[in-house]
């Protein structure tokens, strides 16, 4: 019981940090975490729990506690945290492989995708981030132009999931499917869905995603 209420207090504190529209509290939060010796990924992880809480409050049909404006402001603050923490990640040791990453067409969520990109970079991958709301043709073009080892796609919306299938088909039609390994992830994606569309891997979060990317590189060798 006591643990529950500590957890609740913790979450409501994280939510209040994420909902400060001026961004002062997120800066203070990140700084104090770093001062106490936490590494950037731990900070991302904590903030993600706060975002989950906002997402739950947004989605709960019986008791909706958060609204569109809360999603926008929390997203903005998460981006502020990424800007602040990115330079503090361990120095890059390039050369593990090249990943092209983007969020599929119709979806503008870029936080998870960006954190995953940063995770890969700090592990030594070279990452080409082609942004959000990326149409199929642009994914295909990026694969043609960069000849990456891996293509990573993110989708947070259930409605945009079919786009992932589309991109894989687009790559096959253009003759690139056998030249690149594909990993998918994001809030809306499941392992089963990844398999059903013929992706090579799925990552529930950045840590699993990184492990899978390392595996894909091993398989490639």
């Amino acid at each position, binding site marked *: 019981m006591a643990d529950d209420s500590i957890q609740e207090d913790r979450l409501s504190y994280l939510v209040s940090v994420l909902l400060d529209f*001026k961004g002062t509290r997120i800066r203070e939060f990140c700084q104090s975490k770093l001062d106490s010796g936490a590494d950037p990924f731990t900070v991302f992880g904590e903030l993600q729990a706060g975002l989950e809480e906002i997402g739950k409050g947004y989605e*709960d049909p019986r008791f909706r506690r958060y609204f569109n404006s809360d999603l926008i402001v929390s997203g903005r603050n998460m981006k502020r945290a990424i800007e602040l923490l990115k330079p503090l990640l361990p120095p890059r040791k390039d050369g593990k492989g090249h990943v092209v990453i983007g969020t599929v067409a119709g979806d503008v969520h870029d936080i998870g995708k960006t954190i995953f990109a940063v995770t890969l970079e700090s592990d030594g991958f070279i990452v080409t981030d082609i942004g959000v709301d990326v149409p199929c043709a642009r994914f295909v073009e990026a694969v043609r132009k960069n000849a990456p080892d891996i293509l990573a796609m993110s989708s947070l919306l259930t409605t945009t999931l079919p786009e992932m299938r589309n991109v894989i088909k687009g790559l096959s039609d253009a003759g690139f499917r056998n030249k690149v390994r594909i990993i998918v992830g994001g809030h809306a994606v499941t392992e089963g869905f990844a398999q059903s569309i013929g992706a090579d891997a799925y990552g529930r979060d950045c840590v699993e995603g990184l492990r899978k990317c390392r595996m894909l590189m091993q398989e490639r060798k």
Partner: protein
Amino acid sequence: MPDAHAGKEMRIFFLYSGPFGEQIINTVSLGGLGDQVSGAYELRPEHILVPGGDTEGSESLFENPERYIPTDFPVAQADLLIILGIHGRLSDLVPCIARRLGVRSVLYPIDDRDTIPEAKKTISDELTEFGIYIEFPEPFCSLQRSGDPCINEFLKFFGRPLLKVITDPGSGIIHHIEVIRDTPCGSASCIAGKLAGADSGDLDTLSRFCYDEQHNDEADNYCLAEMDPRYPLMQEAGDLLKDALFEGCGHPATKDTILSVLRQSGETGVEDLAMQVVGLPCSMTASGCITRRAFDLYLRELKEEHRIVITSSSTVMLI
């Protein structure tokens, strides 16, 4: 009834929730009305509505709202109560709170479908019974005039954006923009500040800048209205801002375009007119809006201004 407050400055009280409300309170306070804010109170749903608890149903709240006013609610007086983003179910508390504060008017903007008051009509009726005026602008920045003096006082500062663009007479380069009326979220003055040095004749760039910048979350102030394509309040706010800028520059805005289409084509069906105006690219002779909502708003206004008539068979004619 003698007005005890006549001649004094209008006092404003905010009942709000979340960053949507905070941003507006911040803008209003910094934008000229700070001295007139008599108080603000954050009404979070968690404080009152407990899932599974006895207050979950709106019934008891509806029947006995006074009981649910938080005990730490401040003792304050105000003329205008502005409600910002509170949970729709908590709107039952508004009449009680309005009377406690002694307000004459209530401004209840709707910038998100999910915050629409559950009992809009009941609230209106109840307030009207007590002689309190209420208005529900949707989105907030669409409001430019009101039937109420208090709200009109507020609209001298905030509401539908109104801009005066000062350009260099030779080059047409924007020297500066005077913000006569800012959007309540502050995005209009934020954008105006960034437009100094832009070419007032480059309509495409100006309009694109408006639409992009209006919800750019990298800016100090930005639109937080709902953006769902099925209920595009944010996009409509973008239209209103683009038109304010075009009017300020002396370029044809959407309303001018509606009138000029009617001048050329004569009586036109509403749907046909919408097809010609919504999505029309900007040029020196015409410019459209991107949302049907803005088009419908302009049409209503032109009708109220007695510049057009809309017939029973849904055709539009110039007067």
